[in-house]
């Protein structure tokens, strides 16, 4: 296979709002692509070619390459993680593209995720949201026996469905408002369905929503783009869970 790539190249961390001045799209051709390659392996091939020809390779985040660490993620032809549903960029394979395809590759775009270099963005805002309260305050050594509190299977399953979030940021990148509500909703929904999470539920909902706003993430306007691109297919109902928990917390405050 042969592909023509248009890739965002940027050498310094973004500092201004008008990102177009920070870098530019550059065109490359890669001609020894196998359909069995993953998308990132195709970029590896490009990078090896670039290094040999004396050009600096394209920087991109990646680590586990098995769809779970959440490091990787780029916009591929305008879609976060590319054309396959429920798939991270590292698990996307070149067989999903036509021979001779022209592919546009860009970093996540959101003012809360400044570009660091080429396709690498800074997602520390997600960590700060978690630090504001996406946990159960239990010190090591304190708990009772694990089977002391039975949890109905449907609740446990709902908690699990939300907990599968890998924190990649595709939801933010795909949203026209750069909203992080699918991410934050998943955190809130995970704990809201567990008895252990109930103790701190009001505080958690308030803190997470407040931190989310402070980081500059936008609001939800029900476009469902986040659900469509989420590699773990987290359902939009987690945003409803978040809204309910937040309203409940606010009501109790009065």
């Amino acid at each position, binding site marked *: 296979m042969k592909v023509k790539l248009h890739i965002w190249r940027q050498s*310094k961390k973004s500092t201004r709002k008008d990102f177009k001045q920070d870098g530019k799209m550059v065109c490359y051709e890669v001609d020894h692509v*196998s359909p*069995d*390659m993953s998308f*990132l*392996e195709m970029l*590896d091939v490009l990078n*090896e070619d670039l*290094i*040999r020809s004396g050009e*600096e*390779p394209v*920087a991109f985040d*990646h*680590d*586990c*390459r*098995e*769809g*779970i*660490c959440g*490091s990787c993620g780029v916009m591929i032809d305008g879609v976060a993680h590319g054309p396959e549903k429920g*798939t991270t960029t590292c*698990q996307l*394979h070149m067989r999903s593209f036509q021979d001779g395809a022209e592919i546009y590759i860009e970093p996540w775009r959101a003012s809360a995720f400044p570009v*660091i270099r080429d396709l690498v963005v*800074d*997602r*520390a805002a*997600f*960590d700060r949201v978690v*630090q*504001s309260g*996406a*946990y*159960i*305050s*239990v*010190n*090591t*050594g*304190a*708990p*009772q026996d*694990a*089977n002391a509190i*039975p*949890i*109905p*299977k449907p609740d*446990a399953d709902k*908690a*699990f469905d939300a*907990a*599968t979030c890998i*924190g990649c940021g595709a939801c933010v990148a795909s949203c026209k408002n750069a909203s992080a509500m699918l991410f934050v909703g998943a955190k809130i929904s*995970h704990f809201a369905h*567990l008895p*252990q*999470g109930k103790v701190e539920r009001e505080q958690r909902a308030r803190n997470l929503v407040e931190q989310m706003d402070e980081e500059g993430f936008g609001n939800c306007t029900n476009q469902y783009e986040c659900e469509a691109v989420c590699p773990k297919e987290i359902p939009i109902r987690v945003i409803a869970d978040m809204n309910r928990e937040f309203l409940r917390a606010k009501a109790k405050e009065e």
Partner: protein
Amino acid sequence: MNLDARIPDGPIQDKWDTRKFQLKLVNPANKRKYRIIVVGSGLAGASAAASLAELGYAVDCFCYQDSPRRAHSIAAQGGINAAKNYRNDGDSIWRLFYDTVKGGDFRAREANVYRLAQCSVNIIDQAVAQGVPFARDYSGLLDNRSFGGAQVSRTFYARGQTGQQLLLGAYAALSRQIGLGTVTMYNRSEMLDLVKVDGHAKGVVVRDLVSGEVRSHAADAVIIATGGYGNVFYLSTNAKGCNVTAAWRAHKQGAGFANPCYTQIHPTCIPVSGDHQSKLTLMSESLRNDGRVWVSKKQGDKRLAHEIPNDERDYYLERKYPSFGNLAPRDIASRAAKEVCDDGRGIGDTGLGVYLDFRDSIERLGEPAIKARYGNLFHMYQKITAENPYKQPMRIFPAVHYTMGGLWVDYDLQSTIPGMFVCGEANFSDHGANRLGASALMQGLCDGYFVVPYTIGGYLAGQRPGAVDTNHPEFRKVEQEVEDRTKRLLAVKGKRTVDDFHRLLGKTMWDGCGMARNKAGLEQAIRDIPVMREEFWQDVKVLGSAETMNQSLEKAGRVADFLEFGELMCRDALAREESCGGHFREEHEIEGEAKRDDENFAHAAVWEHTGEIHNSIRHQEELVFDNVKLAVRSYK
């Protein structure tokens, strides 16, 4: 080199209590005066950092990823063992202890393993309290499944992503402490060297991977929790960034490195599809609960799987190991796969693969039941191979997965450098020569939550807090060395890429020091690696500068260390003239099974660095088995 493991006296059941009582305590008001550096944020690092901060210590934690949540513990699929005996099937702490010592082919330290089995039950309690959504049955109670090397169901799991759920639990605990200001987290920061003052570990030098800045951090103690070295093989199930650098730098500063030749080859991975391959993907061992492993009885059989009738199939694990069958431990299942492939009965274009077949389970339980158990794994398999495992058997082949060797530690997890502790896969202590499935998560969390928070206090109680800061000349010296090395990598300006060298090293290691090893092959690798290393420093091409994000430069530093470490690994494999667990020497076998030599090799081999790798000195820690009888490890 002092290799006194400092195991407490008394019966094995009481040793940990004895030690906890012996350890000096740090007054709660004084704890905040002590600073502890934790390198790595996987299960071991994150749980240690969080637990220490909860106790009141000031903690600095470092990871090379952009968030602590991304450490490779996240990728563990199958589960975590614990001796809860919720199934009422005869499990106990003693049985988990016994299974782990036996599974490790009698090359682990008894006292450590017993403590691991004791703490296993607390880990599950802790994780559930944190909100880890383990699988439950309809009663609302926790579910279990069985795993390789055990005949009881003691494995707790969270669908196929137990690692992510447990890491998110530890990451949440860590995040809570970061939010409270007790842990300072340094993301995208890679440890490039250890700093010792008067023989004690007192800090690290790290490179900020965004700005390129090289910085020193001082502390009263250092914990290394940087994982394993499987990427020395280039292709492995490790994440691309996993590396030996932190451990290797510490070794060069005087920490003993134990049993580097013990590597685990996991039997169920997706086979290699071509030269472009950048990593291998594991298919959880839990699949062997319901999948049957087979190849054709005929050599070179090119028929499709469904065209081969039952009586022409060789279910070789069930045939050779009737009592454990498809649940034979990893090293044994991997070698059995190699054996049938060497016999010309491997499947697929390359002949390097065997079938893992769910046909019979789907007939027995129905597709929905199989989907509920393994849905996400089947989905992942289909994405990678474009084959549907509900309709045709999976193709699998062994791949490098885990490394049992690591930095030597005593019973308190302290290395031969005072003040430097090592947790998780980075140390050597608990798995012997082979790790059983679902035991890595258990060990990482046991070390981090329940061992090091106690034992490090015993060390700190004898130290004056904040005795050393980064103005100490030793920090300047190490910083300079790190900067010089980085400049040297950029100054070579050769013709070959870093990946070229890494692939070459990987192939050499796989051929010489892979699933089966022999004297000639190891000697060849020991000759080849130094040549490769020399070529690397003359011909590697690293572009860009040290003052920005430079991913090629990061890789180059890691591969340079692998090129040194690989040689030590081969030397260790050559010196160990026996077969045990994951270390299989072709010269030492009986009817294809590993032949241990307990008379001469019932010890951990601990290497001391003396300047040149070929001059490294091999020391021994004798392993004493008072509670488990040394026996031929049989799964027949």
